[in-house]
């Protein structure tokens, strides 16, 4: 059995080499394979590690059949630490972070938090409802442009534009969601991808409204109002959240609210309906779950969270242009969801920070960022489809549906 697995591993490593070495080894027409070999080494290392972990687990399972593997035990140990302390500690860390960090680090923190909130929103659609959305970034764009246009044309404030952006985002979510209701997973992926591109192209081409590729700038920052009793009278004074720490706290609050919202949704009747749809749509429908309504709701809510993040993004930069909303951005968000563990909130938070902050910290790796994202997605699906911090419910679904390696799941007859 071990021998067979090793053989499989060797073949896999061989094909990986075929894939990697020419793809990365050629510099235009000259051949410099060392870089490719390094990356290949990393991949094979991961695979071997995975193999060893599996073998050790398997071996141990054979010896002491009812003892849990070490990860389970660690997780159990972690879960024994009162959750309040863990969450409290993290909250404290997040709260004091701007006091310890320089502006650059705070800026990175803000970017991470934006992506975390996007990841959490996409998690509703992909993780909970099981609909693969490749155009998610379009809703982010909707939020950003809604605020930008409202602010620039009518002088609407951030807080007033936010609900409008959310509503518009939800409407767009439904527009995209509606035609895709009856579609199968892979068609859905393509359609959402198409929608995402349409939104970007419209933003790019509709010069008179969106200023095309030049983008919009000069939007006001979000404001806070505080009462003032100066001159004996009472009035509200606007305070613009211009400093990075202030913006950091704002997005932190948005993320915390998003986490609370998504958690409550997950554990609600709606959340269970989504999971039922994800597991088996026909069965869900037959058991009386209104699938149409619930899928639309997933799209709409996912879009709403992205829209909020988008509005914040535009307000923070005071600038936006269509090239912020490329397909690659959708892929990054999707990668966060996948790496973290589809459906797992703590996983997405961790993955958001890892995937966004690590390439920022190691600047030299920036060029390799998307390469790594792609590789992570594939390797994760092959090695550990449930993600780094799996959502318990999700674990079973993503692994092979049956234990027999030769079995084909279908007796297709079309």
């Amino acid at each position, binding site marked *: 059995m071990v021998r067979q697995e090793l053989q499989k591993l060797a073949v896999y490593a061989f094909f990986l080499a075929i894939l990697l070495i020419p793809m990365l080894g050629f510099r235009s027409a000259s051949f410099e394979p060392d870089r490719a070999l390094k990356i290949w080494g990393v991949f094979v290392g991961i695979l071997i590690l995975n193999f060893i972990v599996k073998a050790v687990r398997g071996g141990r399972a054979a010896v002491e059949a009812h003892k849990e593997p070490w990860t389970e035990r660690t997780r159990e140990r972690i879960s024994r630490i009162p959750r309040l302390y863990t969450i409290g500690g993290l909250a404290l860390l997040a709260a004091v972070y701007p006091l310890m960090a320089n502006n650059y680090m705070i800026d990175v923190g803000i970017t991470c938090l934006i992506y975390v909130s996007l990841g959490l929103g996409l998690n509703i659609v992909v993780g909970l409802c099981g609909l693969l959305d490749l155009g998610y970034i379009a809703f982010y764009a909707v939020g950003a442009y809604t605020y930008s246009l409202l602010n620039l044309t009518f002088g609407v404030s951030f807080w007033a534009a936010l609900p409008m952006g959310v509503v518009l985002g939800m409407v767009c979510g439904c527009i995209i969601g509606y035609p895709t209701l009856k579609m199968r997973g892979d068609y859905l992926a393509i359609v959402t991808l198409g929608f995402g591109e349409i939104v970007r192209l419209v933003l790019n081409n509709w010069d008179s409204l969106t200023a095309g590729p030049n983008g919009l700038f000069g939007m006001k920052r979000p404001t806070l109002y505080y009462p003032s009793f100066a001159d004996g009278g009472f009035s509200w004074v606007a305070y613009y959240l211009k400093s990075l720490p202030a913006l950091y706290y704002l997005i932190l609050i948005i993320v915390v609210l998003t986490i609370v919202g998504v958690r409550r949704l997950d554990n609600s009747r709606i959340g269970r309906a989504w999971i039922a749809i994800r597991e088996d749509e026909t069965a869900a429908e037959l058991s009386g779950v209104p699938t149409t309504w619930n899928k639309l709701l997933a799209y709409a809510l996912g879009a709403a969270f992205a829209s909020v993040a988008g509005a914040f993004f535009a307000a923070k930069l005071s600038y936006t242009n269509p090239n912020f909303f490329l397909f690659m951005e959708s892929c990054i968000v999707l990668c966060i969801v996948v790496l973290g563990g589809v459906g797992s909130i703590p996983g997405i938070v961790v993955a958001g920070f890892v995937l966004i902050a690590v390439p920022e910290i190691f600047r030299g790796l920036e060029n390799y960022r998307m390469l790594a994202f792609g590789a992570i997605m594939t390797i994760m699906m092959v090695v550990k489809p449930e993600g780094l911090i799996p959502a318990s419910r999700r674990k079973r679904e993503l692994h092979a*549906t049956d*234990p*027999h390696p030769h*079995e084909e799941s279908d007796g297709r*007859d079309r």
Partner: protein
Amino acid sequence: MAVTAKSILELTDVHTYYDNIHALKGISLSIPEGDIACLIGANGAGKSTTLLTISGVQPAEKGEIRFRGEPIQHLRPEQVAGKGVAQTPEGRQIFPRMTTFENLEMGAFLRKDKAAVAEDLEWVFSLFPVLKERAGQLGGTLSGGEQQMLAIGRSLMSRPALLLLDEPSLGLAPKLVERIFKTLLEINQKGTTIFLVEQNAHMALNISRTGYVMETGRIVLTDRASALLENEQVKKAYLGE
């Protein structure tokens, strides 16, 4: 039961799981070379699973399957087919967008002896003349009976030593069923061992020499087919008498 002839297929304590369902709970049986054997039982007893396990489609978790003395339980379906085991599965599984002729050709996929294949094709056409008329027609457009004949014909095209047949009578008019069973006898006379799974117990036992009765994943009764036809229990449960 006295096994006199050398057995072509032998199952020993075979267990199969469908996901978490324990579908076969220790099947043991032995089919002598040149015989017609049948497996009868109610819906969901595990008859089809038995055949799929033999073919390697639903691999056995435990136990041993020997074909001509050689263990085959670890082989993949295409390898089992290569050994000389053909299956006509439930629901016929015709390739709908290939012609009748191409379907038959696929049956001989593993064979290299072109002349013998042509001979077998003529033989199949002589067994089922209607297939010759329909040779250019797409499999998906044939009637149920024609599809069943095509499915059997396709299996024969591999010139199998052992033919596994799952419910050949399903959904067919009684007259057609009779014809198909008659043909099965003819096929058997040419030296092909047949293992038949049937709901139509009466028909099946009539042409078989050995019969097995299956209930919820186990074989509960094994005897000569003629004896099973007289068995009170079998009569009551499966023959509707």
